[in-house]
């Protein structure tokens, strides 16, 4: 087996792994933004496979297709984020389960049976290093901070 064929197989494998992981995430996660990221990840897996095939056959078809995939992904991102913002304004949540009232007639509703408790040690947030002069905090403004 030639080295090119080996390269093709390896890249196809990693593309398949990316696609499958993105699929699992799309099914399992309920946060709309994370679901959107998972879709992008699936597209990346496909792009890797296409580029590998293009290299193997020595023509530009694979790379051309990936360029158009990136174009469509950009359109998709614009529309998806607009829709997410729209849905968030109506529900105040990013939870996709909130929108189950558009389900088919006769389907039983999905109800959360057990909600896990939030623990103290889970409250880890990214920290930014402070820079510059700390601005004066207006407490009234913080209380009336609009939610989008």
């Amino acid at each position, binding site marked *: 087996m030639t080295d090119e064929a080996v390269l093709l197989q390896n890249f196809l494998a990693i593309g*398949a792994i990316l696609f499958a*992981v993105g699929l699992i995430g799309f*099914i399992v*996660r*309920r946060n709309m933004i994370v679901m959107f990221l998972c879709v992008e990840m699936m597209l990346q897996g496909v792009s890797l496979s296409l580029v590998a095939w293009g290299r193997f056959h020595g023509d530009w078809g694979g790379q051309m297709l990936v360029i158009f995939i990136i174009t469509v992904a950009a359109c998709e991102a614009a529309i998806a*984020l607009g829709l997410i913002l729209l849905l968030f304004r109506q529900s105040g*949540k990013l939870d996709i389960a909130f929108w189950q009232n558009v389900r088919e007639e006769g389907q039983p509703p999905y109800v959360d049976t057990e909600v896990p408790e939030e623990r103290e040690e889970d409250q880890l947030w990214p920290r930014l290093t402070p820079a510059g002069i700390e601005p004066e905090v207006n407490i009234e403004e913080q209380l009336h901070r609009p939610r989008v």
Partner: protein
Amino acid sequence: MTGLLALTSELSLIIGTLLADGSPVLQRLSLLVTSPLVWAIMVGAIGIWLMLPRSGRVGGAGWWLSVVALVLLLLIMAVNPAMGELGELVLVFAIAACITACLIGVISWITPRDNFVARAIGATLAAAGLVLVVITLPPLVDIGPRILFWALAGMTAISAVATISMKSPIYSALWFALTILITAGLFFMQGAQFLAVATVVVYAGAIIVTFLFLLMLAQPEGHESYDRMSWGRSASAVASVCGVLMAAGLAYAINHLQYETGASSAPAVAATKAKDVLHEEHVAKLGSELFSQHLVSVEIGGTLLLVALVGAIVIVMRSRSEALTNQSRLAVYSNGAKRRGVNLD
């Protein structure tokens, strides 16, 4: 999908063999136990499942479902003799993985799931699954590209799994950014320089926008409940098993690829094209191809971008006008009127 079709067709075959006679089945079972792909599937599925956020304690149903699916998969894999060829090291690895997986299964079944230990164990198992997948792949000839590829591929897989398993969506976005960066590195390795740069530029913008969205929409009270769990009890188990089965189907198809491509004419065809893809003036060649052969597609793509831009603006504008109810409209109006010194009464 071809892989899954082949898997299903061979499922009927193995059932027929099981009914016919006994001795080859035993032989196949021994091949099966020593197959790294099978262990990769098993360990990977359990590992990803353990890492995903779930609701509380998962009952026995999801666990037994995954066990049944994996046993089924083992039976299917038994008919593929190519999977059985491996060295002693892999055999030791497989047995160790088996014992570990059994222990972990028992331990994590009796302990509450949503804790650090389960996630750490899940990470270990998923990494072991990844290693086993790597073992099944044929290695590149040169040591340099081989190490580079495995390092990049490993980091991609790790950051991808981290993306879907982080509770906080902000961390998910950061891990996804890492995934994209490493994918760009893989593009470079394939000689697709323009695509690598374009991926970084386009997705870097997309990730920053997503990040801003998260900062804007995230609630200050802590993790939302929907970030800490999934759909019901066994959804994440079923999803893990299905996803890993799909990856297995694809890997199965890719493993069969070597028989077809080994003696086929594809490399010869590639040689006659003189490796146009790896030409020195990469972007010039790519541009000439793009704007000569794919001109219509470029035009359509540009139109699509314009339409999406307009569409996104329309969606957001409409939601804003709907959000302003009559009352708030009146409030806005009266505020503005007061500021201008107009008396509404």
